[in-house]
């Protein structure tokens, strides 16, 4: 987990002009966007779907979706990286849920969570090295069960009830693991933001 080469492109200062060039339908901007986020997007989607051919399809869909929706993105206040990563993760989870027959969780709900309008007024550099280090440090402090439930939520899109079924644990226990883990992350990241 956590290899610096994966982060190298992402941690570079975001080109404020990139979103504007994408909105102007500049094909080179799409190439730049892929060069910056293609690797992490593929790694993330592959981690979710565990199939290279499917991951390729979903990466293509992710970038096409960004290209088609960038007109609604606020290029002055928006955070492009978090938006791309949210689209990628949600495409992959949507695929996984369809493949596993978990259709009760509507794809539309996930789509609402990667609307470009939601990615405004975020910190300019939320993917900075200090915060990523803080997140890594926080993850290392989690117990195996706490780490597992966060991974099940993020990489598999499981609800707490589904986690309880999967892990054969009482729902209350799973909820405690989840909330304790999230509180620890919040505290650690809060300190990193202050530092």
């Amino acid at each position, binding site marked *: 987990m956590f290899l610096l080469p994966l*982060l190298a492109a992402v941690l570079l200062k975001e080109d404020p002009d990139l979103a504007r060039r994408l909105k102007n339908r500049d*094909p080179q901007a799409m190439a730049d966007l892929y060069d910056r986020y293609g690797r992490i997007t593929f790694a993330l989607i592959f981690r979710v779907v565990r199939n290279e051919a499917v991951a390729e399809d979903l990466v293509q869909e992710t970038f*096409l979706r960004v290209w088609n929706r960038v007109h609604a993105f606020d290029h002055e206040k928006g955070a492009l990286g978090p938006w791309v990563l949210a689209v990628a993760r949600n495409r992959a989870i949507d695929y996984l849920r369809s493949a596993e027959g978990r259709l009760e969780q509507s794809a539309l709900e996930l789509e609402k969570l990667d609307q470009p309008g939601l990615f405004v007024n975020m910190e300019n550099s939320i993917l900075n090295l200090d915060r990523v280090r803080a997140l890594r440090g926080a993850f290392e402090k989690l117990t195996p069960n706490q780490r597992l439930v966060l991974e099940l939520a993020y990489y598999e*899109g*499981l609800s707490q009830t589904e986690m309880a079924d999967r892990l054969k644990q009482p729902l209350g226990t799973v909820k405690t693991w989840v909330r304790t883990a999230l509180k620890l992350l919040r505290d650690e990241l809060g300190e990193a933001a202050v530092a």
Partner: protein
Amino acid sequence: MTHEELREIYELYALGVLSPEEKSEIDEHLERGCAECGAGVRRAMEVSAMFATLTEQVNPPKRLRKRVLASIGAQPATSRWTSVWAIAAACLAIALVIVGLKTTGDLDEARHQLRASNEQRDEAQRELLVSRSQLSNVREALQFLNEPETVQATFGGGKALPPRGRVFVNPSRGVLLLASHLPPAPAGRTYEMWVVPKKGNPLPAGLFQSDAQGNAMHLLAGPVNRAQTAAIAVSEEPESGSPAPTTKPFIVAPLAD
């Protein structure tokens, strides 16, 4: 739920894994403009984005870049020659400006020349990019067409309305679709190609868009079971694509047995 309780689940909301009851409670707060929930959810979305940085590194295949760019109708060369020429052009422009500056001493004129040179360089770069993209597409198509095992089918022939075109199916290389008179899909929509088997449901074969002139080229790379394929079809779908056609395919190219 109190705000103290809601604060504990903003991240789960951002990940789309809350129960419907919990989710609708946060939705209600957001809909009525609750500042605390708005800020909390935004922070949670930041944290969610950061989770991606914990993922193990896996390198994408090199072809994926080309495929992504082809899906928007562009295919910039991976070569750095374009950049080299652009840098050379920029250096030349600067040199000319310096010479001009020394000769005339007119700073405003020099700035004007520099701006004009930069604009010319940017325009030339864009044109070069488009040309290379078109050339690359043509090369790819020719390579595909030259192979003896490639079979082709047409669609749209004899119809008064567009689109028209051909599909080429190569058992080892994949499916190449060339279309004209295909207007770009409306906002929020895209085109999706389908491989229609002789038995069973259509299989998704990738998303694509046509360019402003109504031309499209889409390649599904990889082996195709030619003997079991009845047709290649295209339908208009939501921009994220669909696992099965949600609209009636408006292109259907049947393959001869």
